[in-house]
């Protein structure tokens, strides 16, 4: 398959091999070491590193600056961009900023509502929504024009992605929603972290029935559970998350000091099962504040070493 951008992630996916991405959360301060250290931990085990954008509306070092750091280290960043905080001028501007450092991947999101974060009294922007942002990046790249119509000097060459949550409600529109994102121009999808594999496989089947798996690369989101407490928290308190009771039980039945190990084991088992699902092009391993486990997970899932392109 031909690639349209210089993105390493795109090249690996286009070659038909499984891709692995992971994410790093920037610090709540200006220390660049916080990013570079995390990136060092995982760099040989992933093809690209997502940098989150003020996730959960908690103010952090901006994704763009962190992505530049990653790029300067010689690694492959994925710029996550939410529409909550920036209007269309700032969004296009930041895209150009990223492109000026040849950052070649972008993930377009709406962003959690600001009431979840540290600035609940702030405005939110949502000048565009996540699908319209996908359209915008494609327009800037493929037409070489700004939204306003003027030409862009040296248009961005970015591989465009969107998120998908097979577990949010209502279920009946989750696949139409995927179709819509593809129509908007999404080229790769990173899903919300998966614990209910049956439901996920059901979603994949519906996607395959429409041929969507051939129109977009789907990377399955995986987050290892650190404890039974984390499983319960994610089950009850995080919107759009589907954690089966069986999983909570399996962790609760494990002695406390072994729960983290069991969580990793479950993650690896799930990845091995999902590797066999038709239409899965790779994995997005989100081990938040547990980045040091990514190498072990990737290796045990049989995805090491990473291919070179």
């Amino acid at each position, binding site marked *: 398959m031909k690639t349209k951008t210089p993105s390493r992630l795109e090249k690996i996916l286009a070659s038909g091999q499984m891709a692995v991405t992971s994410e790093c959360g920037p610090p709540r301060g200006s220390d660049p070491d916080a990013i570079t250290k995390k990136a060092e931990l995982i760099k040989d085990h992933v093809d690209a590193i997502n940098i989150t954008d003020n996730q959960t509306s908690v103010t952090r070092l901006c994704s763009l600056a962190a992505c530049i750091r990653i790029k300067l280290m010689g690694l492959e960043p994925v710029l996550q961009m939410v529409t909550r905080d920036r209007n269309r001028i700032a969004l296009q501007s930041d895209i150009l900023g990223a492109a000026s450092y040849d950052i070649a991947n972008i993930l377009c999101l709406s962003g959690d*509502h600001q009431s*979840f974060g540290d600035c609940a009294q702030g405005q939110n922007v949502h000048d565009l929504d996540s*699908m*319209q942002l996908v*359209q*915008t990046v494609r327009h800037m790249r493929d037409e070489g024009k700004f939204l306003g119509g003027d030409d862009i000097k040296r248009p961005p060459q970015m591989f465009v992605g969107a998120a998908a949550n097979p577990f949010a409600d209502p279920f009946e529109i989750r696949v139409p929603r995927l179709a*819509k994102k593809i129509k908007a121009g999404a080229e790769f999808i990173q899903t919300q972290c998966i614990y209910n594999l049956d439901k996920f496989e059901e979603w994949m089947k519906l996607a395959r029935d429409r041929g969507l798996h051939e129109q977009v690369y789907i990377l399955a989101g995986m987050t290892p559970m650190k404890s039974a407490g984390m499983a319960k928290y994610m089950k009850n308190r995080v919107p*759009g998350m589907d954690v089966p009771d069986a999983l909570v039980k399996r962790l609760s039945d494990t002695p406390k000091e072994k729960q983290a190990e069991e969580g990793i084991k479950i993650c690896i088992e799930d990845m091995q099962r999902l590797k066999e699902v038709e239409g899965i092009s790779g994995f997005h391993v989100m081990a938040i504040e547990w980045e040091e486990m990514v190498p072990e997970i990737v290796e045990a899932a049989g995805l090491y070493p990473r291919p070179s392109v």
Partner: protein
Amino acid sequence: MIVADKKPIEEIIEDIKDHQKILVLGCNECVTVCEAGGKKEVGILASALRMYFLNKGQEKKIDEHTLERQCDHEYLEEIRDDIDQYDAVVSIACGVGVQFMAEKYLAMPVYPGVNTCFMGATEERGLWTERCQGCGQCILSRTGGICPVSRCAKRVMNGPCGGSTKGMCEIDKELPCAWQLIVERLKALERFAEYEELSPIKDWSTDRAGGPRKVVREDVQS
């Protein structure tokens, strides 16, 4: 209608404490329906204020009056002859009324007695909820009559977002997800296929972003 909510009386007391002759002015329309600024609320507020100041050893003149509306010249003119006997007005009309009063009676301090909240409907007595934010370019025909601008916390044009849970919004378990409602309505109208049409980027220039707005109808101007 415009939905407003009574201001805490402490705020109003703070505004009028240095005035002696106050008129509490209500409005017979929207604020009456949402029970925040009608004739009855004028009575309650005036009585409470009188008692408060008497308790502090000050007898202020606090009169009551309710106009049909405070957003039309002719009604606000009705008090032109009597207004000079007061040194302040507490208007418990919506923000429009307070401002129109202030424009008309330049030298008269006007204080708001309610917080104006949104354009909405009476779901039941005692419960008013938002429906419209006046974006200036109504898209309800595309969304089955449910507005994603006013009823979606992120005003996504191609929703729902990934936080929609059991038909409710991620920010409040009791707030219906606007896009869940839209999907259900499209199904009921047998137009579910329209869901996959991408909604274009919105022109917000007719919204608040474009600056204070106006509507002109030359055909009815004199």
